């Protein structure tokens, strides 16, 4: 789960990381009010769940109040990578002496949280990773001890010379780690972390992602969720025990198992088609799940054919077939469907489906070919 910058800033503040004052605005009028009492320069920042806002013109410095309002007019309603800007953050501008990068992320290799810092701040860290990987310092944190004082300090000393700055930065690293763990985060970035002309360190932009598997114990984080239309579908699917992700193709897929679902998408592509979605219905033969899955799948108007790909393991194919038949009776659609069953009791299952008149096949390859053929009619 992702959150907006303004939400990340709020969490940072709660944990004592210094963040400049800001105000979230949903309209030009709110921006006018927000800047009314401001004397200094402000920054107007689009709040969308996409990277590269700056390049897209979604972040603007305003020297005056009227300039701030002008920027807000342009940014509100703007489209950034498919997201419409519905709110902007108005924040005090800061005199930046130098920018840094600080991030925490789960690392598969060390099986730990790693702290990444760089003196190359303010740019996308992926860029730095490509062009100057040696400029990113990576430090795995022992989960049993947390980020110890000396560790935070020694890392900070690689970025800063002045001990006062070192101590400020070290404290921020530790706070960031604390909130990362406390909120079950999977990514927490301050980019840039800046030193201003008065030698104070501030976090002036923040990004946080959270572990979906841990949301059950993070009610405050969950309350921050602001899903867009596609995400709403995914969340809805998740609540029904399904795993759904919308894509841009024409062949809807319904598969049991995530790996097999990905392999199914790949197969469609391999044979010249294009998958409309990822949809994993899991291990059950429950007809309701199939009905729900079909409804979600068919709500995508691009879908021209549906490929059902089931491998019977512990769940036998004849049971799955019974579930499918029951479900397909309920669903009323003109979109052609091809059913593939394999594994335990596949023969029995296929025989049952054939009686319904639906096209059946025994292998994935055949199913993909058939689905593409049907979608092109």
């Amino acid at each position: 789960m992702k959150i907006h910058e303004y939400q990340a800033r709020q969490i940072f503040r709660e944990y004592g990381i210094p963040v400049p004052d800001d105000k979230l605005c949903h309209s030009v009028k709110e921006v006018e009010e927000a800047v009314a009492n401001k004397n200094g320069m402000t920054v107007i920042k689009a709040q969308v769940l996409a990277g590269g806002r700056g390049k897209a013109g979604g972040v603007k410095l305003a020297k005056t109040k009227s300039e701030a309002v002008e920027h807000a007019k342009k940014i509100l309603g703007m489209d950034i990578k498919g997201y419409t800007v519905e709110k902007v953050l108005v924040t005090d501008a800061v005199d930046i002496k130098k920018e840094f990068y600080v991030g925490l992320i789960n690392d598969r290799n060390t099986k730990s949280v790693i702290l990444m810092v760089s003196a190359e701040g303010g740019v996308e860290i992926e860029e730095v990773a490509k062009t100057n990987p040696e400029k990113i310092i990576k430090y795995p944190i022992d989960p049993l001890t947390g980020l110890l004082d000396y560790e935070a300090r020694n890392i900070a000393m690689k970025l800063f010379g002045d001990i006062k700055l070192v101590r400020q930065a070290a404290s921020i690293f530790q706070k960031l780690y604390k909130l990362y763990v406390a909120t079950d985060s999977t990514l927490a970035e301050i980019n840039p972390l800046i030193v201003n002309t008065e030698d104070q360190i501030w976090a002036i932009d923040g990004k946080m992602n959270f572990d979906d598997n841990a949301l059950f114990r993070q009610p405050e984080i969950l309350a921050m969720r602001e899903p867009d239309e596609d995400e709403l579908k995914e969340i809805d699917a998740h609540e029904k025990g399904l795993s759904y992700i919308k894509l841009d193709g024409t062949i809807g897929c319904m598969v049991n198992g995530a790996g097999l679902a990905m392999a199914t998408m790949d197969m469609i592509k391999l044979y010249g088609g294009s998958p409309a979605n990822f949809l994993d219905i899991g291990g059950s033969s429950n007809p309701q799940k199939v009905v729900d899955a079909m409804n979600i799948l068919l709500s995508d108007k691009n879908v021209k054919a549906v490929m059902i790909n089931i491998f019977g393991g512990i769940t036998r194919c004849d049971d799955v077939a019974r579930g499918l038949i029951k479900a397909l009776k309920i669903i009323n659609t003109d979109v052609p469907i091809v059913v593939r069953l394999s594994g335990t009791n596949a023969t029995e299952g296929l025989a049952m489906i054939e009686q319904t008149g639906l096209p059946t096949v025994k292998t994935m390859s055949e199913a993909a070919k058939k689905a593409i053929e049907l979608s092109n009619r």
Partner: protein
Amino acid sequence: MSILINKNTKLVVQGITGRDGGFHASKMKEYGTQVVAGVSPGKEGETVNGIPVFNSVENAVKATGANTSVIFVPAAFAADAILEASAAGIDLVIAISEGVPVNDMIRVMPILKRNKTKLIGPNCPGLITPGESLVGILPGTIFKKGNVGLMSRSGTLTYEVVNMLTESNLGQTTCVGIGGDPVAGLYYLDLLEMFENDPDTEAVVLIGEIGGDAEEQAARFITEKMSKPVVAFIAGQTAPSGKRMGHAGAIISSGSGTAAEKIAAFDKAGVPVAKEPSEIPLLLKEKLIKIHA
């Protein structure tokens, strides 16, 4: 021979009185696995399909000599169950539970290392040494004893592939589902080494997917350390960036972990990558013919 489990494996099922735990305990027992004990706090003295239930893993180990544990408890309690098994002296823990918070797993890892406990999973289907022992939720009937080792990050895709292998008369030494989570126990490198050292394994199938760089590491390991042939398949070539494909681990981000990168790494290591699952038995047979030639 085989790796990790065999007919001497003595299994304890944590969460045996739950729906999944009870069902699969019976299935494993049917398959021939020595399921010696179950654990469910407060239910010591009961039995599940003839399997005695204990209050704690410690009690189960003391009474039955269990050396392997499989975990079916809900995700929120999985990490604690893993630690309990480890503290009780279990050598190998297989965590089936799906949806375990990553932070929980990160905290578990150094403790397992200290206790020298091996972990498979979480969010994995388990493993099987055909004809000897099945631990997890794999459908036993599709497997066949033989000389191919297999490791995979996914479930049904593995069954799909195994089914093809078995139908092509390519039996298996041990098949391991390592699970789809980003922070997990034994991974390719550990298992490749075990298969390399297992006298009965003649070739290895590696089923990977998008996310992380474990496949790239495996490719390097194969180049440097493996004498036995390996055949690979990578799922998720069409997956979009930044989206989680069912498995928490299957997410491409920051321009790394793509299928293309993984396939390139295997190409470089001389590991043939199947274009679709049905190609795997063919590639494997080519390799095996060379060995036996």
